[in-house]
Structures are given as C-alpha cells and as structure tokens.
C-alpha cells in the first residue's frame, strides 16, 4: 500500500511539474507580457523598466528556475496587473466557481447515473431510445451554444431568469443547468454501456439461476460491478470542479476562476495563469489518485492479495 501510494504520488508530482513547465513555455512563446500589459504605444524605456522589475529581462531558463524555486517556497508570484498575490486573486474566485460546479456535479450524478441505469434496464425500449437521444443531444451541443440558447429562451423570451451576473441565486440557475446537462449526458451514456456490459456477464445469469429476485440482481449484483468503470468518469468530473466552467463562466459573465483565467491569459498575467494551471493540475491529479484508491475498494481483483488462499497442491 505504501509502495503503491509512493509511486502514485511520484507520478502525480511529475504530472504537475510537466503541466507547469508546459504552461511556462507556452506563455513565454505567445507574446511579450511587458508589451501587452504596458500597451502598444508605451515608451520603450517604460517597457524596459517593467521587464526589469518583473525579471523578464533575464534568460528564459533563469526565469524558469527562479519561478520553480519560488513555487517550492510556496510563492506563486504576484499579478503583473495589480501587484497582488496571484494565489489570493485566484482563491477569491474559487467559491464563485464552486457555487456553479458543485450543484452541476450533483445534477450530473443525480440525473446521469439513474438515466443510464434506467436505459440499460429497458434496453431498446422507448425509454432507452428517448434517454439516449437526449444524451446524444446533451453532449454534442457545445456548452456555449446551450448556454446562449437557455439565455435566449429563459432570459430574453420568457424573462424568467437573469442572463448574467452574480447578484442572487437566480443568476446561478442557467449556468448550473448548462454545466450539468452536458455532464449528465456523458455520464448517462457511460453508465448505460457499463451496465449493459455487466448485465451480459455470466454471473448475472448465475444470480438469476439461484433465485435472486431481479431487483436484487440489479442492485446487489450488477450495480457494484457497473460502478467500477463509472467511477473513472465521476472522478474526472470531480477533477474538473475548478477548471470545468471556463466557457460557461464567460457566457454568463460569472466571476469565477474560469473567467479570471480567460482575462489573465488575454493580459499575459503570467503569475495568475500559472497559479490557476497549477491549481487545476493539482485537483486533477488528486481526483485521479482518489479514483485509483476507490478502484481498490470497489474491485477486489485490483487489491493486493496478502491472504491469497494457499493452494492445495
């Protein structure tokens, strides 16, 4: 177990280093932050001074090592825009993002999994076809299209809900639905196929053959097995709690982490962008680790077998 955790943590650390490095390189390659922040008609001396102040005049590899050294000391840098700590800027936005993504996750799980199970249990029936048609629609429509559609219908036409902003809970409804529907569709399709796969297994027939009522076959025998692959997708969704709302936040002008990221990228506010990417990588990696551990709980075949029943040979 210790070995397992150790190797997983090492891999997680490598993943994070790679993400941070990648972000660093791409941001340096895609334009000069000093020029962009100071504006196109700023005097050259001012731009130079800005570069010197932020260390941008040093060779890239020096900047890179300085940056890493700072991260290791817990210093994620300051915003080049207003000089505040990047971590504080980002942290301020997290609650707003979670206010969208957590309820959306509940919708994904609460709607997607039951829909997938129902569809699988009534395979090829009207219910199955209806659920799958909705699911295909749900994940083929991009979230910005769905978001705009919802705004058009519920805000512009019907006037029931506001189209953007963050003034009351009513403002959150449309973005949450936009986020939740796509995920629920993915989860429904995935759960359905996992469930169908399991229902076709010989042990399901064994359960029926020993007189287990169908309800118990589904709940006691099929679901625990179908849960194993489904957990991967749910884990991925948990991992994207922070970063999964970039598009939706932009569409609904919701002041969350995603919108901060868009703005910071536009401004080449390096520290802020890097801070967000680091955060995203860490949540992803953590949720992956949890998924791996959950696999062990759900699937005894993946557990270490210290108590391997001794052979009789």
């Amino acid at each position, binding site marked *: 177990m210790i070995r397992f955790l150790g190797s997983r943590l090492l891999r997680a650390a490598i993943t994070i280093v790679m993400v941070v490095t990648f972000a660093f390189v791409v941001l340096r390659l895609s334009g000069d932050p000093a020029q962009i922040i100071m504006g196109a008609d700023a005097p050259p001396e001012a731009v130079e001074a800005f570069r010197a102040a932020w260390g941008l005049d040093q060779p890239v590899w020096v900047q890179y090592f300085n940056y890493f050294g700072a991260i290791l000391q817990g210093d994620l840098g300051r915003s080049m825009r207003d000089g505040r700590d990047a971590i504080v800027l980002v942290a301020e936005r997290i609650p707003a993002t979670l206010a969208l993504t957590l309820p959306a996750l509940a919708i994904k799980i609460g709607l997607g999994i039951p829909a997938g199970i129902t569809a699988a249990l009534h395979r090829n029936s009207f219910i199955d076809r209806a659920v799958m048609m909705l699911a295909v629609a749900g994940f083929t429509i991009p979230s910005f299209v769905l978001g705009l559609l919802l705004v058009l219908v519920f805000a512009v036409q019907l006037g029931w809900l506001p189209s953007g902003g963050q003034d009351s809970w009513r403002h959150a409804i449309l973005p949450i639905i936009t986020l939740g529907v796509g995920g629920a569709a993915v989860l429904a399709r995935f759960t359905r196929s996992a469930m169908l796969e399991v229902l076709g297994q010989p042990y399901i027939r064994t359960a029926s053959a020993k007189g287990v009522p169908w309800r118990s076959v589904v709940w006691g025998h099929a679901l625990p097995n179908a849960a194993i692959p489904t957990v991967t997708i749910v884990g991925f969704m948990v991992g994207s709690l922070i970063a999964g709302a970039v598009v939706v936040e932009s569409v609904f002008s919701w002041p969350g982490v995603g919108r901060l990221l868009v703005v910071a990228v536009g401004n080449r506010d390096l520290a802020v962008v890097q801070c967000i990417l680091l955060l995203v990588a860490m949540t992803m990696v953590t949720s992956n680790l949890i998924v791996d551990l959950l696999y062990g709980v759900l699937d005894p075949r993946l557990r*270490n077998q210290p108590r391997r029943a001794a*052979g*009789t*040979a």
Partner: protein
Amino acid sequence: MTALLKAEGLVRRYAMRRGLLGRSVEVRAVAGVSLTVERGRTLGLVGESGCGKSTTGRLVLGLEAPDAGTVAFQGQPMSAPGTVAWRSLRARMQMVFQDPLGALDRRLPIGVQVREPFDIHGIGTAADRPARAIEALRAVGLRPDQAARYPHELSGGQRQRAVLARALATEPELLVCDEPISALDVSIQAQVMNLLVDQQERLGLGILFISHDLRAVRQVSHRVAVMYLGTIVEEGEPDAVLHEPAHPYAQALVSAIPHPGRRGGRIVLQGDPPNPADRPGGCAFHPRCPIATALCAQEAPLLKPRAVDGRLVACHVAHGDALPGAGEVRRAA
C-alpha cells in the same frame, strides 16, 4: 540422417507480478525440454494448462528466444528472431493456433490471406499466385468460390481450414499446431484431424501437435510426450503411453479420459493444477502424486529410458530407484 527439428535443454523464464502491486517472481514456464520431430512424423505434446506446452511450441519456432538450450532445424542452429535468415526459415516452418478467427485478418477475404505467403516469400510469379491460392484452398477442402469469403462468413471448421491452407501454402517442412482443434465441434475436429494426416502424407510434414486431448493426440501422433510443469515426464509410442503409462501423472491423465463404460477405478488427482510460479522442489509432481516417496520431495528425477522397455520416463518409482510411497509427502523445506 539429421532430425527435422531437434530441441535440447530448452528453458524459458518469465518475470511475473503477483497481484497488481506484488513484487515480481520468476516463473520457469519451460524448465529443460528436449524433443525431436522427424520428417513425415508427428510428435504429440500433451499436458494441462500452464504446463508450458504452448511456450515450448513458440520456442521451437524461434518466436521466442530460450533462456537456455538450443533449437536446430535440419541440423542448423536456429537464427535469431527477426533476422533475414530467420525469416526465410520461417517459410519452412509454420504455426496453427487454437483460435482461427484470431489468426485471420477480419478485413481480408481468405483467398487474399492464403495468397499472402506467396507474395511475402516470393513464390511463383505474380500472375500465377491467385491460381496457387485457389489450389491451396482446394487442398484443404475449401471451394474456390469461398476464396472471396471473409473470415466471419465461414464456420469454425472452415476457418481452421483456411488457416491451414495459409500455413501450408509455402509447403513448409514443419508445422507446429497449438490446440488446433479444441475450439471446434466434435464432428469438425475429426475433419481437421483427417486433413492434418492427409497433408502430412502429401507434403511429408513434420508436425508438433500440442493438445490437452489424449484421444486426438493418439489419432494423429507417432510419438507422444507428456508435459508437467515445464518438463517432459514421459515420452513414447502413443499406444504404449496410453495403454500402459509409466509416470503417475500420465497414468492419472489417461485415467481421466472420460469414456463410455467406465464405472469407477479412476485415479483422481487431488489438488489444483500446479502454479508455475510456485514450483515444488524435487519432482514437481510429488505434492499431487499418489505414490510419492521421501526421495521425490528431494531430488528431481531425470527423463531417461526405463530399464525394462526403454520407455522414456522421469520418475524415481518407475525406474525402481524408490518403492512406491503413499503420497502426501510434505514439501521439502
């Protein structure tokens, strides 16, 4: 005259992980196997799952390199896998597997697949290759019009015929068949066994016939070798081994063949098939052996001719080096 195929002292080890997180242990899949296949003759290799018979088949074809031991084809040592020499050798030795659907390409008609070996090995002119492919199909009892069929459009028996047609297309001298009939129905098994025997007569093939089915092995083989946990424990004429097996494992294997009229009198081995990763010391069979003695737990018997009739057997008791014990010998510490 040199033997068609001669393998000596083949050893193949694998590193196997126990469980997902366990440390790796060494598994000796093949632990010192020597065998000979003569031209026009068939050597049957029998044993249960995990005994190393399939690995042995891959080793003699050079599909895997042995960790020790040598393989000689027509007196020449086997070239290293992947070399030009090995590839030209491969045209003269072919393999047929259990699952014909897995051995065929689902996206190509079987006629094209049977033609492939001619293209690869540059046999005949491009113009007469289609005719050759048809001829190869006819030789295994498939109709020319079936050349246009895809593997999934054929029955299991027809697919195995197609695999054989492709294997025999280059007129090889050696054919290694790994459980070629186990996936087929009884009536189809008979067809394929007859076909193998016919083709052997036609081409003078040497065949290594790997199977768990003693009936099938007797039907097609001139000699039979019984494998247990990576070693050959008995070898001889099929009828001699079947009617009067010398090794206790061979005795159990023969007595396990179900057949009408048997009521009782069967040797039922205790315990599960052994785990190659947990190989007992001494004779590998001793923990399941009904007549194991103390010696069996300590010293591995060698495969050597028995004094009375020259039968090759690896058993202390069969050689008279120990009196039959009562089994249940504790594993040597």
